[in-house]
């Protein structure tokens, strides 16, 4: 009899272990159909931040999905720049981050800011992925080769080669004014970023 209860107990424990994690809350847009790769919950942060608010933002040049290259310094004296690093194409949270920024161009404009989206994926992958988001108004840059060089320079490259989910706000003088290396499993609330842009005036 006692053995029976033990069996029941272990069965229940096993059932619990098999229950999918309820921790990662995320939505999938129908836009991506079944093409989103489930990453599960990842280590929230897997890098040590070395750049700091008040530092000069390291310059870089990266190829853009739309063609040509983008250099950070080209915005010097003209626009504030928001860098949005996301971990990887075709993953759950990232796929639902830039489409939100895509309907807030007016907010970026109002604060004289441009947005640069960056991942460590190559151009063809980024092309296929961002096509599902509709027409994006901001450049998407590929930090693929040398792999994650810019992410490493900004100290947001993870040990598995993905980038952190990180936001950097760089003012017109090229100085870093805000850094949010976010929990990779969560999307940073938009109001936090907009509040930082408001402070730039």
């Amino acid at each position, binding site marked *: *009899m*006692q053995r029976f*209860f033990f069996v*029941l*107990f272990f*069965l*229940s*424990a096993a*059932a*619990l272990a098999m*229950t*999918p994690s*309820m921790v990662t*809350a*995320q*939505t*999938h*847009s*129908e*836009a991506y159909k079944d093409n989103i790769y489930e990453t599960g919950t990842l280590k929230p942060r897997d890098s040590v931040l070395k750049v700091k608010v008040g530092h000069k933002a390291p310059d870089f040049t990266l190829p853009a999905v739309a063609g040509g290259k983008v250099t950070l310094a080209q915005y010097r004296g003209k626009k504030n720049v928001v860098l949005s690093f996301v971990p990887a194409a075709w993953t759950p949270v990232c796929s*639902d*981050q830039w*489409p*939100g920024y*895509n*309907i*807030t161009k007016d*907010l970026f404009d109002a604060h004289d800011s441009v947005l640069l989206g960056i991942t460590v994926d190559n151009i063809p992958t980024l092309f296929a992925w961002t096509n*599902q*988001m*509709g027409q994006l108004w901001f450049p998407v840059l590929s930090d693929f080769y040398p792999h994650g060089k810019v992410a490493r320079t900004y100290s947001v490259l993870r040990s598995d080669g993905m980038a952190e989910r990180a936001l950097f706000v760089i003012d017109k003088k090229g100085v870093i004014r805000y850094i949010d290396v976010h929990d990779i499993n969560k*999307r940073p*609330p*938009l*109001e936090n970023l*907009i509040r930082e842009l408001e402070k730039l005036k």
Partner: protein
Amino acid sequence: MKKFFWLTLLVLSTLLLSPLDMMAAGPPPVGGTLPDFTLPQPGSSAERDYLGLSSRGNFTVPDIKAKVVLIEILSMYCPFCQKEAPIVNKLYEAIEGNSGYKGKIKLIGIGVGNSAYELEIFRKRYNVPFPLFPDADFTLHKLLGETRTPYFIAVQINEDRTHKVVYSKAGSLGEVTPFIENIAKLSGLK
């Protein structure tokens, strides 16, 4: 021994049954009912009037003065929801412009994973004319079976305030006119 029996039962009910319950939840099935949840009173008086709520506190979907409530589960961050927004607005206008449907079919939206700020951006961007409710921490999303977005649920509300899900589906609602006619048929409105 008896104590052990009760202990096992307790362990079973807490460990085994509750997660399985959550797993089995899925999106509300047609013929079933909505999970238990309340929504906060909308901010604007126009939206309160639209929903015809009799009390001032939080409310449930069957508290809405309607024969059918259509719930859109959406996200400001979801490209398909952005694309769908003008279609849902057309649906709203088609309902409001038809005396057979006006006041009988009502729309609400739930912005899953959206803060109030983010959902307000969506509302302004697409001039959404019906009430939207933020679900910033995914509480409702989990209750509603973690659906993809957009997702539409039509709920038939009976005179005695009982209710029944008559439509529950992911993806675009498609063409406005056939969609309303289908909902009207499924809910016995027509």
